[in-house]
């Protein structure tokens, strides 16, 4: 039992230290030194880190590069947003003092439906009136979608670049649907103006009970995902993932149903991403289809790559560094920040294919272990040197 | 014709070829014998330039090639039949052979000699290289090397996975080619019987060093067997 928790979940001594360092940073240093605005920004970034962690599992270890991970993230976010929007609509209906509102909106209907001449709540919105059901759907919808995609693709042995491009196409389909079915989804505006959850004013920036609490919940959930990831990776399933990434046929001829393993890890990744999406909505108070488009999905892969695609903890740092870098550079050098960011991507892939985790590892082997320990050997990324002589 | 001096090759920090020197005259066939993992392939690859060498020299016909890229070495007269054949699997048999024509003037025409030597390739010339069986691919690989009209032909375990009769054919073909073109051949092998048919001289490689040399006439089965067994 002790070994289960200590060795597997926490990754032994070095893994534990890595977790503690991260926890200290996120739970102590950030909250003390950052103002609410910056802390909230971190919360927002962290809600993307869920996807990066998910990508470590399915891409770094499973070799499944999904360029549509934002879809799952987005579905999670939309589920949460749907619930919050209905609550917001009820609030407005309750508070409705002005004649204007009464005269011009349908009571209890989300505002954007009203703008789109929808007069009655569509049937598939009904489940989102109920919070537990919403939470369940937030995980279920993306996971079931991932399951369908997984079964369909992995059984047919679609892999590598093909899988990547197909998931990208799916991402596009999703974007088109979300953007154009405006009456149902808020279209390109997204679902905005979300403030309370079951009466809890989570957008409140002043008090510990508002945005800061959301931040802490986000951090705790990150921890849960990392531990879950470690448990998976240290199990036999984790080893099989690495094995099938490198030599898929051998795994199949050892009697394993490769497709079901891939589907499993893809579903786990989808569920984790969805959690991130839900928390994102809590951090920012709205959901936007811009985040379900192709570009953010690629960013998510980049977070993962920068952090080190084989490192769960690295994924968190990768997300924070790139996102913060993006914000910082765009504030400081609005003209030049894209050069910096683009340059970093090229540099990381060409010179540091193992990402931050790899850099730390090679700089200080001991620290590197702390940083990237997942109970699994470091991956088989070929070295970056030039081909041939 | 081929003159190798103090060749050193390493993977990262671990040396695999350590100070190998030998020469092979015009029209001579030499064999490098050795067990698995002793460095035969590494030696061959560094001769053709797929692997960089960290010291030493490789001269073909008096021209120093050890600092040149692969393709320049081919122009300098080397040709290579790799272990595992390395056929271009999506190219047709014909196109596979044609890749070897880089060094010659007419880059379209495949000489009839080649097909005479390997008739099966003619029958299969439109088929994709990847769909050939192992033995067929081996013949294709040799053909691909020969069409470049090399001065020195390097063969890495050409009998691996080949049926007995074709091993005999290959031995015959090599001897013919040698006669025909006055070709220098370096062949790495584990199978003694084949080696004895083609080689004029034998070397034994162990842990990256040439530790033994014999003329064919002087070879004693026991000595070689000693080196070749574990």
């Amino acid at each position: 039992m002790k070994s289960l928790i200590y060795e597997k979940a926490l990754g032994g001594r070095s893994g534990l230290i890595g977790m503690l360092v991260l926890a200290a940073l996120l739970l102590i240093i950030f909250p003390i030194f950052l103002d609410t605005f910056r802390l909230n920004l971190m919360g927002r970034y962290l809600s993307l880190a869920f996807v990066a962690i998910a990508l470590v599992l399915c891409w770094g270890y499973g070799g499944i590069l999904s360029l549509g991970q934002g879809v799952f993230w987005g579905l999670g976010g939309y589920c949460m947003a749907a619930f919050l929007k209905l609550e917001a609509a009820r609030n407005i209906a309750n508070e409705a003092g002005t004649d204007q509102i009464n005269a011009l909106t349908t009571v209890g209907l989300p505002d954007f439906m009203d703008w789109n001449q929808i007069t009655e709540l569509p049937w598939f919105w009904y489940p989102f009136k109920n919070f537990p059901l919403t939470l369940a759907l937030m995980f279920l919808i993306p996971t079931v979608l991932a399951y369908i995609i997984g079964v369909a693709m992995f059984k047919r042995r679609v892999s590598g670049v093909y899988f990547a491009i197909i998931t990208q196409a799916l991402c596009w389909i999703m974007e088109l649907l979300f953007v154009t079915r405006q009456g149902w989804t808020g279209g390109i505006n997204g679902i905005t103006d979300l403030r309370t959850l079951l009466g809890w004013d989570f957008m409140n920036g002043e008090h510990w009970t508002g945005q800061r609490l959301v931040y802490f919940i986000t951090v705790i959930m990150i921890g849960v995902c990392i531990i879950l990831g470690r448990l998976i990776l240290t199990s036999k399933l984790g080893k099989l993932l690495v094995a099938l990434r490198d030599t898929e046929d051998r795994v199949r001829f050892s009697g394993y149903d490769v497709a079901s393993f891939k589907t499993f890890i893809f579903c786990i990744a989808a569920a984790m991403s969805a959690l991130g999406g839900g928390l994102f909505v809590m951090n920012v108070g709205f959901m936007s289809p811009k985040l379900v488009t192709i570009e953010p999905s690629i960013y998510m892969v980049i977070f993962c790559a920068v952090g080190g695609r084989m490192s769960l903890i690295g994924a968190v740092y990768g997300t924070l560094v790139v996102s913060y870098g993006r914000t910082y550079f765009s504030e400081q050098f609005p003209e030049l920040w894209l050069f910096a960011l683009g340059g970093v991507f090229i540099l990381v892939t060409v010179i540091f294919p193992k990402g931050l985790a790899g850099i730390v590892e090679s700089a200080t082997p001991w620290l590197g272990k702390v940083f990237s320990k997942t109970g699994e050997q470091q991956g088989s990324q070929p070295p970056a040197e030039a081909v041939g002589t | 014709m081929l003159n190798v001096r103090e060749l050193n090759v390493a993977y990262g920090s671990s040396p695999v070829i350590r100070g190998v020197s030998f020469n092979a005259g015009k029209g001579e066939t030499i064999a490098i014998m050795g067990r698995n993992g002793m460095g035969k392939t590494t030696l061959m690859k560094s001769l053709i330039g797929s692997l960089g060498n960290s010291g030493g020299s490789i001269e073909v016909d008096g021209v120093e090639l050890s600092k040149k890229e692969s393709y320049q070495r081919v122009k300098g007269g080397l040709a290579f039949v790799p272990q595992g054949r390395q056929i271009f699997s999506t190219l047709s048999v014909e196109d596979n052979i044609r890749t070897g024509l880089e060094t010659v003037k007419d880059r379209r025409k495949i000489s009839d000699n080649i097909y005479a030597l390997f008739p099966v390739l003619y029958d299969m010339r439109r088929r994709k290289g990847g769909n050939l069986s192992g033995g067929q691919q081996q013949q294709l690989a040799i053909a691909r090397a020969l069409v470049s009209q090399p001065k020195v032909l390097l063969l890495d375990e050409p009998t691996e996975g080949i049926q007995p009769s074709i091993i005999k054919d290959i031995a015959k073909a090599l001897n013919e080619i040698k006669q025909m073109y006055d070709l220098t051949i370096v062949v790495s092998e584990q199978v003694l019987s084949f080696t004895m048919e083609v080689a004029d001289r034998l070397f034994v490689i162990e842990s990256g060093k040439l530790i033994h040399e014999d003329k064919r006439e002087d070879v004693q089965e026991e000595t070689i067997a000693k080196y070749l067994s574990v």
Partner: protein
Amino acid sequence: EWTNPVLDKYPTDKVNTTGLMVTDTTVTVGQLHSVTGTMAISETGSVEAERLAIKQINDMGGVLGRKIEIIQEDGASDWPTFAEKARKLLVSDKVGTVFGCWTSASRKAVLPIFEKENGMLYYPTFYEGLEASKNVIYTGQEATQQILWGLDWAHEEKGAKTFFLIGSDYIWPRTSNKIARIHIERFLKGCKVVGEEYYPLGHTQFGSLINKVKLKKPDCIYSIIVGGSNVAWYKQLNAAGITADSLAKRGQILLTISTTEDEILGIGGANVEGFYACMKYFQSLDNENNKKFVAAFKEMWGSDSVIGDVTQAAYLGPWLWKATVEKAGSFDIDAISAASGGVEFKEAPEGYVRIHDTNNHLWSKARIGKMLANGQFEVIAESPELIEPNPFPEGYK
């Protein structure tokens, strides 16, 4: 070293009771537009116009004796980024006001933040209405101000009876077309809509749409295509043989409310010559205010630059804010919000504008321009009076 000439009259602790970034000599404002991404095309003009206005105000001595300083943020055509930057401007930078946004989507994303943090936004774009926040001054037209008068013109002056409504697929074109459809079907005698189509922002393949238009032969092609898509749309129309001349032969016209001088710069005047647009402002407006404005704009941003409707509306923002602050004698948001009603700007390039007493939109005129080969408009009609803004129009629901 700048000293504030009116500091005695307006001491900082009086004009700023809520901790905004106002000092004895400066007031900091935010500018929040996309300078990267797909919307940069349209928003660049707004950035430039606001900068020009601020420079001119500073040259005149600033606001309440304080020089305006700018913190500019890039919304990067990404609504979540807009929200993030809006919050930064309000919470971290505590700016006095923000000039910004272009698309309705970006406005919707920042609106809750402006309301929550009690900030002020001057929003320059023609938009769909259905909104009247005390934290936003809408310096562009809402739907009724742009649409109704234009349709009436098409019907009465050009005899249009059948209309084909076309738009980019988001809330502004959709809402505008909704209002247009209701107006056509309810208020214009014997008129009807023969088609309604939407394409995603950035769409570039209009072959099928053009064929549908050809088939339906509407008297009026009513276009609300936004941003970069415009270029493909007009070029392909042209290539398919639909030009103003060919339309005129059959008694048809093309009327748009989304194509300004900015877009024509990209399309090329030759491709659009003879089509009509309904706006409140054209660069070619012949009045003294506008001549000065155009000259100043070109001096600051180059003689090649053009000015579209939204660009002009953006120019109004800083001036209206200055007037309101001076009227209120305070930078406080609540004071500004309370004082906004009735604030006028007589030097407006479009002629004259005034903030509505209750709904924070502007009274302004509507005009029809005919596109010329040189990328400018010839103004051929103008509403006689200022049109009252009515963001929640009765009878159009």
